[in-house]
């Protein structure tokens, strides 16, 4: 097991470094002078040169990359071009909103997916199954930010149950904040949940046809007990794969949905940074988002091995 984990951690580190290099190349080496971007096209050459030196952009790329990386490890990310405050201060506040939002959405989508998927599989080809699968097909097709708008219209404008947007800040109490995050996470979870529900259903149905399920029934286990003890764990394997893939969709979804609800998370931050031409903030936020996606996929890899003992054997 430890060999397995060590191998995965190495892959994780390599992927993270690779991702950071890609971001660095795109953001700093691609044509487009950050100083020029900040000052605007009609800035004087001298002003551009001065800013270039001030930002340290005249130094060789390798050195700048090294500084960035050591900066990340020490929490020294430099100052925002637009706000003149440390990037980390901006990011920290936003992270405390985006991470809970993402976690809440993924939890909600998994709960939705498992309950709908299992129910549909148990009622295979009956009315309930067909209706749910029709709805989930619709759910897949709906853009999450439109759903967000619809939810606002319904719950905030028509019913006035929940706030239409904004985020009070964690100081205001846990429940108020949870309420503010409920609609956004619902908008995100519906789409991902619909995809996962379909995977869960087909996966459960497939596992039910396996020989070992017949063995379990032949032992005298009821349909229910067979489902919980023998089918579910095997059926979760493909669901897990797709959850890993869908997490990136969910995270980029938060970027969009945060803007629908005016929630000051990473998505709002990065959009503001783009409008302010604050490339250093964009760079770090993109790396952060990419890191979250990579880490989640790492966790998925580890979970595989926990669920399926065969995988461990292959790797060692």
């Amino acid at each position, binding site marked *: 097991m430890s060999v397995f984990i060590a191998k995965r951690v190495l892959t994780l580190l390599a992927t993270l470094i690779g991702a950071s290099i890609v971001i660095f190349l795109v953001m700093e080496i691609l044509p487009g002078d950050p100083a020029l971007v900040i000052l605007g096209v009609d800035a004087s050459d001298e002003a551009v040169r001065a800013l270039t030196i001030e930002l340290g952009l005249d130094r060789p790329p390798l050195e700048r990359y090294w500084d960035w990386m050591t900066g990340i490890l020490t929490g020294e990310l430099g100052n925002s071009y637009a706000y003149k405050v440390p990037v980390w201060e901006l990011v920290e506040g936003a992270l405390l909103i985006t991470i809970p939002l993402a976690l809440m959405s993924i939890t909600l989508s998994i709960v939705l997916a498992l309950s709908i998927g299992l129910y549909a599989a148990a009622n295979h080809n009956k009315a309930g199954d067909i209706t749910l699968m029709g709805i989930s097909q619709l759910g897949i097709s709906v853009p999450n930010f*439109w759903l967000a708008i619809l939810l606002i219209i319904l719950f905030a404008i028509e019913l006035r149950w929940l706030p239409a947007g904004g985020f009070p800040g964690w100081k205001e109490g846990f429940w108020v904040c949870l309420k503010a995050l409920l609609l956004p996470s619902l908008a995100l979870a519906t789409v991902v949940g619909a995809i996962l529900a379909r995977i869960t259903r087909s996966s459960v149905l497939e596992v039910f046809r396996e020989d070992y399920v017949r063995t379990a029934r032949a032992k005298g286990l009821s349909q229910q007990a067979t489902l919980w003890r023998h089918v579910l764990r095997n059926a979760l394997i493909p669901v897990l794969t797709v959850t890993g893939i869908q997490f990136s969709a969910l995270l980029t979804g938060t970027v969009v949905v945060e803007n629908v609800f005016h929630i000051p998370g990473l998505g709002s931050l990065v959009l503001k940074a783009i409008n302010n031409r604050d490339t250093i903030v964009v760079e770090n936020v993109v790396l952060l988002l990419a890191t979250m996606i990579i880490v989640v996929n790492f966790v998925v890899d580890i979970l595989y091995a926990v669920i399926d003992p065969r995988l461990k054997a292959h790797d060692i």
Partner: protein
Amino acid sequence: MTAFLLICAAISLFWTPGSAYDITITNRFLPPSADHWLGTDQFGRDIASMLMTGTQNSIVVAVVAVSIGLFIGVSLGLLAAAKRGWTEEIIMRFSDFSFAFPAILSAIMLTAILGPGGVNSILAIGLYNIPVFARLTRGSANSIWAREFVMAARASGKGRFRITFEHILPNVLSLIIVQATILFAIAILAEAALSYLGLGTQPPEPSWGRMLNEAQTLMFLDPMQAIYPGLAIAIAVFGLNLLGDGLRDVLDPRLSRKR
């Protein structure tokens, strides 16, 4: 359904019920009528016309983005399968960590450097599609390289590139077409999200995402305006997903039986 959208887009090239660009302030927020099928927006633009022109825009973005991914991705995939060795290794490692950069993330990077615009969003979505196609193509191409008829072709002295075009490509094509339909739907969603954020298509060009963005500020006044563009996106994506499923059933009977 997809055909309906194509027809809408085609018609809008020549004719729309009203003008999608004309701003007539006196006609603000008109309810649906014979002249304005779905009413007008806050600038007095005809919503139905905007939707139809928006269809055009979505289709162009999606077609170009998917084509970029398709051509580059499929070529890379075929190359990886034909060459094997380090070529394959490099291509696959690259597509391995590209999963960390979904379309919206790459679009954010690109717009931060190059400024917002329709071209950038096309580029970002296209870039994201490359590894998806590359991986799929390589996977199925590899399995076809191992088949007997390819062995026979190699034994008869045909070169790798000739085999690739004569035997491999035709056999992986059906899978690629199915994947393209699905990515087409994803591209439409991504484009809408990007132009909603203001990173994609710029005004006055109508696009579904932008319309939603503008409608959101007016949610309290006229909620219906926020409904139509989203509905259009949902219908487009729904249709494409069904088309993808249908194509898979037709082109790959093996897969459909498994489901």
